């Protein structure tokens, strides 16, 4: 009971911190800003540009596309933290919302999507193409660039959805790697078929065995000796899960989607 109370208290205090930040930047009180730099990672001039870019994307697609940086999630799981913020401040977007949270104490990132956005930007895209768009800048500390690239990629993915009527799915996209493998294996298969057909044009072969002339009943096993020599041991360590630098899908708690990782 004490533990639950502690978690709830922590959550409420964190939300209060975030809401204070949002409140400070929303004088009109109509809509929470799309970028809140709680960890002070972006210069003011870049912040203005970033806010402008995000707002343009939001207007263009009728969505909420936001970024939140915090110094710490106060020990709270970053996914739960991001989803709580999204439910609290970005739940009213007509066509869905997507929020990126950066926690600087443990250098973790998480992108959460609500149930509407999840059908437009798939979880595997969040931890795939979307992550790939910004992760390098994030690692290098080019935060403004990373956030702009995040916004641009969301814009691109939303445009794809609007144009095609379905979410971008990398499994539907052409894979050069798979094409290369398929080409190579097909060539080998084609070559072996040709070789087999050419070989079938002749049934002339040298006999290597005299098995059909062996009188089976004359075989007499005179002796056998099975001698143990030694034992050698091979140890193959099992792979341990490690998502550092990568991205992992967050599953679907409460209709949320997305994914996160470290940088």
């Amino acid at each position, binding site marked *: 009971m004490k533990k639950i109370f502690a978690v709830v208290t922590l959550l409420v205090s964190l939300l209060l911190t975030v809401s204070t930040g949002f409140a400070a930047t929303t004088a009109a009180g109509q809509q929470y800003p799309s970028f809140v730099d709680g960890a002070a990672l972006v210069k003011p001039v870049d912040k203005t540009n970033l806010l402008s870019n995000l707002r343009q994307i939001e207007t263009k697609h009728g969505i909420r596309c936001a970024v939140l940086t915090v110094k710490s999630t106060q020990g709270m799981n970053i996914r739960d933290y991001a989803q709580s913020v999204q439910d609290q401040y970005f739940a009213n977007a007509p066509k869905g919302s997507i929020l990126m949270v950066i926690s600087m104490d443990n250098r973790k990132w998480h992108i959460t999507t609500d149930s509407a956005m999840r059908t437009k930007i798939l979880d595997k895209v969040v931890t795939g193409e979307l992550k790939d768009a910004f992760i390098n800048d994030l690692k290098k500390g080019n935060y403004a660039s990373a956030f702009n690239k995040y916004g641009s990629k969301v814009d691109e993915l939303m445009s794809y959805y609007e144009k095609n009527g379905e979410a971008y799915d990398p499994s539907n996209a052409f894979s050069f790697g798979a094409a290369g493998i398929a080409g190579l294996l097909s060539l080998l298969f084609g070559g072996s078929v040709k070789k087999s057909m050419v070989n079938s044009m002749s049934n002339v072969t040298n006999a290597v065995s005299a098995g059909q002339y062996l009188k089976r009943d004359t075989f007499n*096993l005179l002796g056998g000796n099975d001698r143990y020599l030694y034992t050698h041991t091979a140890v193959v360590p099992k792979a341990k899960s490690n998502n550092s630098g990568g991205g992992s899908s967050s599953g679907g708690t409460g209709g949320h989607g997305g994914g996160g990782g470290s940088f």
Partner: protein
Amino acid sequence: MADTSVSYKCPNCSAPLSFLPGNDKVTCEYCGTEFEVKTIEEMFSRQEERAAQEAEAKEAKWDTEHAGSEFTEDESAYLKTFTCSSCGAELVCDENTIATECCYCGNPTMIPSRFKGMLKPDYVIPFKKTKEEAVEALKKFYEGRKLLPDAFTANNRVEDIQPMYVPFWLFDSEVTASAVFKAENDLVIDTPDAIVTETSVYDVERIGTMKFERIPVDGSEKMDDAYMESIEPFDYSEMVPFTTAYLTGYLADKYDVSAEASVPRADKRVEHSAAGVLDETVTGYMRHQMESCAVRKDVGSVKYALVPVWILTTRYNNQPYTFMMNGQTGKFIGSLPWDKGKATKYQALATLIPLPIIYFIAKFLIG
């Protein structure tokens, strides 16, 4: 002029006698009279003796100074002439021919002088398959060969079909074989942190005796070894003691590769099979491989036999193609030409058809 060859003629109508495939008697194809093999053999044995003496006398005259300037000594030793006892034509054949057919009158002809100084075959496997069956078998051999050039089947004419008794050595051997194997068993332990595999290694020895009967090795230099080995096996239960009567109407060669020279080919096959037999006795291990094997021949004997082979020759693009059929079992062998264009077409199809399937599987696997 006395004959240097002997024609087996019907005592009833003087037509050429032939041993018909599938029969146990010599039959006159013209008047239908049948003769016991033994009768024919006795009837013509005297004639053969006389012919042999005459041929010997004639060969003695084969002096290089009378042989004509255009033949070298090697050539004259290789090519021999004989007189057909039926039409008197001069027949030319190589030094190993012991039975042939007159190319002018078609009379089956024996050359008894060639029997001299050579081993008499112990056995003969009589022809069972006819010329018609050989032609039919060749047609069947073409069927289903996707790469066969269209021109080959369209313009193909069998140039020559010859039934020939090919000399074979039949090797019997009793051997003692010993082999050493390296065998292994795995014990796999799955722990939370790792997979541990303990492999126990064993040294396994096996020794045994076994007997091989009638391993055939052809004794003819001009017959391709691979063809002769491909045409196996023969049904030895139908093998009969040799008499020259079986040769009437067929070509026959005497051996020009001795039994001693053929031994290595038989031994090699025995060693391979003996090792395989010992290998089968290594059980109780997850895997094993042979380290060494030695085969000692305890008893070895050899018999000399003539076996029936149909030889069919055809020509395509000025190149001869030879096919052979086991004259007893009908097993047909040969190498056909193949069309490079067709081969490329099938290769392209075999490459392109599975391409999308493999692509989607690869894409699924690599995510």
